[in-house]
């Protein structure tokens, strides 16, 4: 049981800074997911926590102890790698036992621990197999097993599901969540998949170009994204982000005027802004402030995603309609949105207004 604290963590490679000061406190037993596009510095962040990369500035603390200069093996962490990093010449059993043997644990104790982990992960009967004789999902479980037998203070996951097919990924996602709750081990989990991030996380860190844009519970990020980047990254289909202009009656956007929940206080009229509207909040209506011409329909069964063009200047909006909604291509569709579902961002900084 432990806490993990990152304080102003920075990383530079030859003058070029790739992580620009990330701070976050992971509470005991919490699962924090770091999510962002590739190249945003999330893996570097995780590797600094693991001790596989040196820290340029700032501190990593585990249970209040600064571990910047501590070897990876002495940090009491376990890591699950993207490619699993199973030792190919060892059986599943030996893979899991390796870390315990290196620590000089007694043979009997090792056997007990590995067998317990194998039972939790449903690996019984597979322990004598070499990694190449295991399926992708089984390898993934062995990699998890190798982490949990050690009973570390912190689990680190580096995109552990990205090598699995879509179906298995969903299944393993649930298993990881269940396992982490069962064991109650403090965890830091890196992924580029926002659905994975939303479903797993107690709290999310959205990374963008080396900066933590927002840290918070998944629903808070969904409901009140702090930046336009977070708004566009979280949620599927992605939020519509279009240019608009504040006016006295609300905001002028995509050829319509949408009223705002809080009049004023968000900037003087005439100010150009970035307007964010989630597809699921744009509802087809008899008459709405917005109108689009249907260009494409994605009929998913439960929902129909409507892609349409609004206004004269080719602005495209996506709306999520009920499954039965079936306008003809080229038809105009009126869209309404509740004022509280309008997000406004500064055009230059991307910050929420």
């Amino acid at each position, binding site marked *: 049981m432990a806490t993990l604290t990152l304080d102003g963590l920075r990383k530079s490679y030859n003058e070029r800074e790739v992580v620009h000061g990330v701070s976050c406190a992971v509470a005991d037993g919490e699962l924090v997911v770091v999510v962002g596009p590739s190249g945003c510095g999330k893996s570097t962040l995780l590797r600094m926590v*693991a*001790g*596989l990369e040196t820290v340029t500035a700032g501190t990593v603390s585990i249970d209040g102890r600064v571990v910047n200069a501590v*070897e*990876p*093996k002495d940090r009491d*962490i*376990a*890591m699950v*790698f*993207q*490619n699993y*990093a199973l*030792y*190919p*010449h060892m059986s599943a059993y030996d893979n899991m036992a*390796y*870390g315990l043997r*290196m*620590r000089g644990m007694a043979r009997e104790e090792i056997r007990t621990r590995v067998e317990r982990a194998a039972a939790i992960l449903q690996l019984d009967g597979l322990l004598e197999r070499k*990694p*190449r004789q295991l399926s992708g999902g089984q390898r993934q479980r062995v990699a998890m097993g*190798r982490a949990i037998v*050690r009973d570390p203070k912190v689990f680190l996951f580096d995109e552990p599901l990205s090598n699995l097919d879509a179906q298995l990924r969903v299944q393993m996602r649930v298993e990881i969540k269940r396992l982490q709750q069962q064991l109650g081990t403090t965890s830091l989990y890196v992924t580029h998949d926002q659905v994975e991030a939303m479903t797993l996380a107690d709290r999310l860190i959205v990374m963008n170009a080396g900066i933590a844009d927002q840290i918070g519970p998944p629903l808070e990020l969904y409901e009140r994204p702090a930046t336009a980047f977070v708004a566009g990254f979280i949620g599927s289909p992605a939020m519509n982000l279009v240019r608009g202009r504040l006016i006295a009656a609300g905001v002028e956007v995509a050829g319509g005027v949408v009223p705002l929940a809080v009049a004023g206080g968000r900037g003087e009229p005439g100010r150009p802004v970035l307007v964010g509207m989630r597809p699921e909040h744009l509802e087809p209506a008899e008459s709405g402030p917005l109108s689009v011409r249907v260009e494409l329909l994605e009929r998913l069964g439960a929902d129909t995603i409507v892609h349409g063009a609004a206004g004269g200047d080719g602005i495209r909006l996506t709306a999520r309609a009920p499954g039965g909604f079936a306008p003809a291509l080229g038809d105009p569709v009126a869209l309404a949105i509740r004022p509280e579902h309008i997000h406004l961002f500064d055009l230059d900084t991307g910050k929420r207004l």
Partner: protein
Amino acid sequence: MERRVVFAGWLCPAVLLVPQMAVTIVFFFWPAAQAFNESLRRGDAFGLTTHFAGVANFAALFASPNYLASFWITAVFSASVAVLALAPGLLLAVMADRVVRGAALYKTVLLIPYAIAPAIAGVLWMFLFNPSIGVLAALLRWLGIDWNYFLDAPQAIMLVILAAAWKQVSYNFLFFLAGLQAIPPSLVEASAIDGASPRRRFWTIVFPLLTPTTFFLLVVNIVYAFFDTFGVIHNVTQGGPGQSTEILVYKVWYDGIVGLDLGGSSAQSVILMAIVIALTAIQFRFIERRVHYA
């Protein structure tokens, strides 16, 4: 899917095959057949006629203490050359793998000895250790070692082993380096997190994963020591003192060209041929069953 090229007629593929076939026939099958033929014949005292002698040449070889001694010398020589060429090659590769700055220069310099012909390598070592004019020989004398490999058999053996191994270190270095770079870094990182010290990481993870490379190199080095070291022996010791550095391939040449015993020399070639075929077969079998690490 295997890609197959389909030719319309037989002429084009035949023409394409001719150069390779010609080289193989002229430089391998023909001499091999001649050696095999010669090995079964015996010449008269003046070398004017030969007559069929069955396996008499082979029987004579295995009854000859000189030949059996040469076998033993070859075994010691090959094993030592293989070990002395492999171990430093691996060590240098492990070190080069860690070098970040100037890595290209480092690797280039380490590869230079491989570009040197065995005969030249032999001459180089001969000059270094020549009892009369050698720089290192003088140093050894100064250290109180009675250095004269022209008279001292163990010294002579050590010198040819060193000279032969030195040249092969580069080759082994190159293959070990490639082998090391094929090991995913995450395996070594995982083992570091698992608590293994750098030394244990090497022996429990890296070295086992290099096994295919090591085995391949072992066979290649043995073949090298058996067959490609004639130049080294010839330039450094001429097989002496006495017969102490006369390895099999040197004896073939000596008995045939100097001793003019063509039948006996051919019989020795045939035996060597059998050995190299066996080694190659082992190598091929191994490569077919080669473990592919996922």
